[in-house]
């Protein structure tokens, strides 16, 4: 057995030895130990260095409140900034103190503490200004931070995320939580009980008491068994860390073994907070020395882990529970000296450089000891109550904030309800249940073992001698609080931010109240007048992986997939994401640019096959369909003849070009809106909004059929021949450019629409999505004699650029008006209302120097312009942008560079030469029409 391990007792299995290393030295533990209990058992006193002054620090608490013992763990599990008090020791763990180099015992930055007087709270705001902060910052950054991220560290598995509802969520499985859960479950409620400890029981695990004739631990075990029998869920290692809108409570469950954590999103009908209370420190000099720890933690180490907090222990307290703790320790054979301020006896200072060696009392006497257990009172854990907008009130008798007016649906029980005496638990649970409208009957009061709570105030005082620590991790002392008061940082939020009180990883669980109390006395206010800072989630740090869950790689914003994806892959397609869809960029080996050139040329020379399935196919049906489309589109659609198609723009109410697309009028009352693939959801929503706002909802319906159909496009001079070879013979008179027809292709029912995004004769063939592969194979086979070539998006982008056709979002931006694209007609001629119409008359819309969509000719042999290059000019000695290049390629058809651009007054400058700048380099460009290939459009019927 190790130095401080007692022979018997505790919840550990002494027969199973565990070995791990701490700062390179082997530590022997037993099964059931936490890292902290094992370190204490082994007599490892200095487990950490403080954040700012690098003071030596020991274990302070026994749970989530721990401010000091923060460690990095590697080996069987990888943990950064783990609290040694909440991680079970495992064989082979490599545990390292954080913020200490090379070890916590011999930290080379320990010297900083000697200069502490020159670096008080917020000193950094007052210096490091000359010559500049950036000179000092790098070395200060290196000093800061606790644990270390290991870039190549073990992968942290994704956490599960579970949604669950219940009638009652009980947070905390101490005596109050167990009893509340049991009573609620007995009434038939669906109950979830959670606790952040390794085992249920809370204070029953270390305080002696008897309930219903059983000792506390046995009662806890039996209660859990009864809860299970009643169908309740009991979750250990599970922290309720946040309460969110509409009563959602988030629980973080840690899986010590596999590291596969779980986020529970619970929608409880009622919440009972039996979250206990956290002990506070006492204000004496050097109250941060290793060997000083919370009294309740000291008892917990003895009773739970069989580790004595010291051989000769001083218990310093100002309250009756602290005294009871001393009595229990004493009864268990620990040598205890009680220093109780209620009897006028107080510690003035702790002596000992690296560990407690003795204490000097205020009367000047000295007590030799190796541990000081402090109990400065208890603060109910009311974080969730406060997150739910509960208001705290000050209780002068108990010297703490307590829950004020009840928050609907949330009640508080046990020590969280400031019932620090277990005798009060039954009544407090009864009250909590009745506040939650759970009728648990008149359950009899059970055991009692402790006297009523008695406390005398013991807050830090102004001008106290020595260094009295308030916030251990962030090194905030009483003098820092005094400094903040002196400099008028007296609001509690200013106090926090100026001194960093409560901003460490423990968020001030053991320290905030002492700081607030000192500020109150310094500014002649009461503690409630100073108040608390805002309680925000999470109660304790939550693994990021629990929040992200499965959303990684393709599970993060899952992209949409083509029905033909496997076909494309089999053909050697390279896939990229375009507008949320995974689509072929090109086919075959080699660089994308070369493939795109090759494919574009093939399309011009013979025929290309292209998967256009993501293109929108929103059906608008009904007697008011034409009217609705007239409103939503800039261009008139009601004048369209059945069987014909028309290109149009959709404007937002701001007049901006939102989308473009072809509208197909299938028959009098049925249209298909072929919007951009990335705008389907938006256009659908827009159509629905106007439908419900302005039209009879029983006279026009909207159905988004985009994914119900696949569309395969044939384009090129041989496209008609391919269709004929596939068995479809339609002459140009029946199926002219911009018309549509429903026909049979073999046994496939298809819609064939003649629209072109390449400038060549094109057929868009749409088929039920489940028949897409058959259609693709049929057309591919039929096209073989004609040298049919599959083309990807990149080739299509080149082909359309040769024609000067826009791609929304590429050749337009969020400021483009239809007139900027040369589309003035509808504004002049349209007689009915349409979306965005009034916006086209503003001063901005009608200014003469708007950007216009034009082409740019390269004037040198430097190849294509860089997309994103700007046209520039000098105005009044200042460089100014005229607009920018939206698309730029080498045209394989014309064998020269082409470019499209939005340039100020472009239409009136056709033929002018402007300068173009990219990354500082300038070239010349001649403004031309956007369409540089087949401007007459002969090839549409070629």
């Amino acid at each position, binding site marked *: 057995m190790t130095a401080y391990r007692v022979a018997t007792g505790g919840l550990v299995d002494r027969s199973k030895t565990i070995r791990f290393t701490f700062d390179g030295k082997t530590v022997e533990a037993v099964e059931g130990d936490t890292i902290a209990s094992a370190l204490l058992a082994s007599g490892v006193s200095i487990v950490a260095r403080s954040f700012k002054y690098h003071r030596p620090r020991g274990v302070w608490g026994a749970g989530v409140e721990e401010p000091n013992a923060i460690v990095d763990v590697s080996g069987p599990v990888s943990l950064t900034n783990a609290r040694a008090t909440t991680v079970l020791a495992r064989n082979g763990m490599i545990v390292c103190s954080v913020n200490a180099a090379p070890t916590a015992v011999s930290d080379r930055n320990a010297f900083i503490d000697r200069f502490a007087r020159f670096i008080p709270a917020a000193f950094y705001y007052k210096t490091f200004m000359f010559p500049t902060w950036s000179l000092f910052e790098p070395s200060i950054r290196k000093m800061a931070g606790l644990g270390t991220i290991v870039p190549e560290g073990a992968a942290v598995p994704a956490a599960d995320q579970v949604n669950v509802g219940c009638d009652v969520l009980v947070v905390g499985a101490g005596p109050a939580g167990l009893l509340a859960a049991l009573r609620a479950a007995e009434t038939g409620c669906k109950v979830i009980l959670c606790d952040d400890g390794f085992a249920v029981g809370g204070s029953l695990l270390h305080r002696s008491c008897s309930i219903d004739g059983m000792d506390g631990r046995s009662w806890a075990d039996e209660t859990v068994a009864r809860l299970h029998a009643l169908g309740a869920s009991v979750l250990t290692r599970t922290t309720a860390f946040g309460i969110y809108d509409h009563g959602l409570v988030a629980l973080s469950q840690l899986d010590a073994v596999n590291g596969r954590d779980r986020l529970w999103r619970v929608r409880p009908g009622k919440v009972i907070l039996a979250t206990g209370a956290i002990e506070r420190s006492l204000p004496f000099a050097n109250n941060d020395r290793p060997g000083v720890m919370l009294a309740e933690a000291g008892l917990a180490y003895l009773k739970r882990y069989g580790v004595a907090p010291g051989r000769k222990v001083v218990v310093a307290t100002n309250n009756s529970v602290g005294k009871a703790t001393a009595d229990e320790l004493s009864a268990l054979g620990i040598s205890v000296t009680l220093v109780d301020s209620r009897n006028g006896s107080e510690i003035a200072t702790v002596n000992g450089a690296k560990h407690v060696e003795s204490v000097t009392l205020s009367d000047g006497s000295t007590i030799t000891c190796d541990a000081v257990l402090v109990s400065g009172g208890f603060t109910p854990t009311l974080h969730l109550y406060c997150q739910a907008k509960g208001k705290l009130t000050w209780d002068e008798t108990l010297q703490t904030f307590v829950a004020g007016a009840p928050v609907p649906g949330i009640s508080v029980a046990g020590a969280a309800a400031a019932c620090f005496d277990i005798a009060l638990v039954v009544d407090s649970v009864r009250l909590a249940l009745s506040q939650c409208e759970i009728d648990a009957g008149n359950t009899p009061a059970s055991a009692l073992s402790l006297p009523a709570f008695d406390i005398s105030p013991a807050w830090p005082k102004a001008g106290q001698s020595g260094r009295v620590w308030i916030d251990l991790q962030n090194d905030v002392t009483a003098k820092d609080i005094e400094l903040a008061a002196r400099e008028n940082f007296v609001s509690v939020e200013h106090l926090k931010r100026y001194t960093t009180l409560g901003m460490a990883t423990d968020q001030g669980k053991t320290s905030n109240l002492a700081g607030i109390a000192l500020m109150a006395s310094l500014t002649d206010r009461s503690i409630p007048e100073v108040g608390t800072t805002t309680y925000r989630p999470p109660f304790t740090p939550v693994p990021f992986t629990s929040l992200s869950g499965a959303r990684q790689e393709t599970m993060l914003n899952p992209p949409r997939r083509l029905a033909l994806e496997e076909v494309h892959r089999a053909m050697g397609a390279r896939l990229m994401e375009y507008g949320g869809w995974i689509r072929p960029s090109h086919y075959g080996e080699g660089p994308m640019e070369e493939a795109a050139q090759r494919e574009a040329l093939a399309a011009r020379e013979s025929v290309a096959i292209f998967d256009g399935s993501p293109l929108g196919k929103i059906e608008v049906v009904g007697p008011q369909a034409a009217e609705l489309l007239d409103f939503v589109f800039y261009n008139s659609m009601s004048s369209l003849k059945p069987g014909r198609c028309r290109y149009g723009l959709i404007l937002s109410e701001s007049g901006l070009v939102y989308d473009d697309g072809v509208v197909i009028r299938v028959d009098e009352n049925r249209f298909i809106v072929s919007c951009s693939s990335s705008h389907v959801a938006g256009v659908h929503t827009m159509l629905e909004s106007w439908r419900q706002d302005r039209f009879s909802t029983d006279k026009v319906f909207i159905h988004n059929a985009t994914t119900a159909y696949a569309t395969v496009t044939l384009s090129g001079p041989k496209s008609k021949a391919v269709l004929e070879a596939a068995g479809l013979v339609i002459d140009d008179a029946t199926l002219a450019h911009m018309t549509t027809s429903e026909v049979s292709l073999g046994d496939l029912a298809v819609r064939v629409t003649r629209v072109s995004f390449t400038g060549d004769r094109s057929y868009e063939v749409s088929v039920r999505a489940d028949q897409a592969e058959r259609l693709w194979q049929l057309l591919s086979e039929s096209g073989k004699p004609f040298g049919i070539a599959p083309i990807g998006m990149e080739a299509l982008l080149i082909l359309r650029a040769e024609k000067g056709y826009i791609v929304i979002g590429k050749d337009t931006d969020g400021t483009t008006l239809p007139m900027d694209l040369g589309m003035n007609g509808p504004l002049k001629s349209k007689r009915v*209302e349409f979306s965005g119409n009034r916006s086209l008359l503003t001063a901005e819309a009608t200014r003469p120097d708007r950007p216009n969509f034009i082409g740019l000719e390269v004037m040198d042999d430097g190849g294509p312009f860089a997309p994103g290059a700007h046209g520039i000019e000098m105005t009044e000695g200042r460089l100014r942008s005229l607009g920018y290049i939206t698309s730029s390629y080498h045209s394989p058809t014309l064998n020269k560079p082409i470019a499209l651009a939005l340039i100020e007054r472009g239409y009136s400058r056709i033929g002018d030469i402007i300068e173009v700048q990219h990354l500082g380099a300038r070239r010349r460009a001649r403004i031309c029409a956007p369409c540089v290939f087949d401007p007459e459009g002969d090839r549409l019927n070629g």
Partner: protein
Amino acid sequence: MQIFTCPFCGPRSETEFHFVGDFPKPRPDGMAKVSAEMWSDYLHNQNNPKGAASELWMHMACHEIFRMDRHTVTHEVTGSYALSSEAQS
């Protein structure tokens, strides 16, 4: 996560809903007859109350627009109502 109640589909997660605008918000028709100020007021200005708000929302699962009354500080939802199907066509 807030729970909104679609009058057609029942209580659903906030992530299924899309804000449409203040309720009511009539569109001024009439092109040039509408002053720039009127149009800008319609297009841009918001009630944006701190407290009780009446708003139009679309439930993206069924695409129905409905009126929802809620409190913009506490996030309490006090009611949601289907709009009249009688339109002004």
